[in-house]
C-alpha cells in the first residue's frame, strides 16, 4: 500500500496532472485511507466553491467592447492587422512628434511670427514718417542742355538737392545725338566745382 501522499500531490491529482502508474495507485489509496479521502474532498471543495461562485454577466461588456473596437478601428487609420498604415504612401502616414518637441516647435513658430510682424510694423512707421516729404514733393524739372552745362547750373542743382536733403529724384538725360569722345578733364572731378 502506498504511503499517504502530501497535499501537493493530492492537488495535482485533482487537476489530472499525475502520470498513469501513480494515478491508479493514488486512486486505490484514496479508496482505502479515510484520512486521505477526507483531505481529497476538502481540497476538491475549494475548486467547487470557486466554480460555483456567481459570475458577473459578461454579455453587456462583450457587446460594449465589440462596439468600442469597431469604433476605434473606423476612427483611426489602424485596421485589422494594423497593416494599412504600413502600406500608405509616405505623405499620408502619420508622424509621431513627442510632446516637448511639439510645444517647442509651436513656441518657436510663434516667436518668428511675432517678431516678423513687429519689425514690419517698425518699417511701416518709418516709411510713414518719411513718406509725405518724399512723395508729396513735386518733381522739379531742371533741363540742362549738355552743351550749356556750366558751373553755375550745376551749383544751382547741387544747392537745390542740398536743400532737399538729397532726397530729390534727379533724372539726367543726354541729347539723342550725343557722341561720346574723351574730351578734356572731367568736370565733376574738379575740386573747384565741388561746393
Amino acid at each position: 500500500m502506498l504511503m499517504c501522499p502530501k497535499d501537493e500531490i493530492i492537488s495535482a491529482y485533482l487537476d489530472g496532472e499525475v502520470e498513469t502508474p501513480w494515478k491508479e495507485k493514488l486512486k486505490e489509496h484514496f479508496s482505502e485511507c479515510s484520512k486521505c479521502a477526507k483531505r481529497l474532498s476538502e481540497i476538491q471543495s475549494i475548486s467547487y466553491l470557486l466554480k460555483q461562485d456567481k459570475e458577473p454577466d459578461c454579455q453587456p461588456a462583450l457587446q460594449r467592447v465589440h462596439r468600442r473596437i469597431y469604433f476605434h478601428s473606423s476612427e483611426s487609420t489602424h485596421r485589422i492587422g494594423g497593416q494599412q498604415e504600413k502600406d500608405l504612401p509616405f505623405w499620408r502616414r502619420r508622424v509621431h512628434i513627442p510632446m516637448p518637441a511639439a510645444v517647442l516647435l509651436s513656441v518657436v513658430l510663434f516667436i518668428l511670427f511675432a517678431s516678423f510682424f513687429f519689425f514690419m510694423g517698425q518699417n511701416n512707421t518709418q516709411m510713414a514718417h518719411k513718406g509725405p516729404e518724399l512723395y508729396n514733393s513735386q518733381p522739379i524739372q531742371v533741363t540742362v542742355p549738355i552743351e550749356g552745362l556750366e558751373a553755375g547750373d550745376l551749383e544751382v542743382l547741387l544747392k537745390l538737392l542740398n536743400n532737399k536733403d538729397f532726397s530729390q529724384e534727379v533724372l539726367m538725360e543726354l541729347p539723342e545725338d550725343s557722341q561720346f569722345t574723351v574730351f578734356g578733364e572731367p568736370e565733376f572731378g574738379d575740386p573747384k566745382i565741388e561746393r
Partner: protein
Amino acid sequence: MLKKTKDREERFNQEYPILFPVIYRVSYRITGDEVISEDLCHEAFIKYYERHEPLPDINQAKYWLIRVVKNMSLNYEKKRMREKNAVNKLEKITPQYMESTEKGVLKEETKIAVQKALDKLPYKLRVVLVFKEYAQLNYKEIGAILGISEGNVKVRIFRARERLEKILKEENAYVSEG
C-alpha cells in the same frame, strides 16, 4: 491585401464571442473588479485586432490574450496594493471608524465572499489558480504563459489552494460571528 484583411476580420468576429467570456472571466477573477476587467479586455482585444501576424489557431489566440491580460493586470495590482497600504495606514490612525465601515461592507457582500478571498491571495498565487480554475488550462499551458516550469506551477497551485482554504475558514468564522 484587402481579402486578407477581410478574412482576418471575419475570423476575429468568429473568435471574439468565444474568447471574450474566457478572457473576461480571467481578468475579473484576477482583479476582482468588473470595470477594470472590461478595460483590460478592451485593451487586450484591440491589441489582438491590430496584431500584424495572425495567430495559428483559437487556442494560441487564447493563450496570447491571457498573457496580455495578465501583464496588464499587474499594473492594476501594483496600484491596488499602494491603495491598500494607504488604507492600512489610515486604519492604524483611526481604527474604530474603519472597523465599523468594513464590517458593514462585509455583511452586505457575503455573497461574493469567494471573490473576496481570492482578492486576498498574493498576486502570484492568485494568477495560477485563476488560470487553472477559470481558464481550464493545464500545468504545461500555465507554465508556458507565465514562463515558469510545470513543477513550479504545481507548487503554486497547491499553495494557492492551501491559502484560500485558510482565508475562507477565517472568513466563515467572521461572518457567522457577526
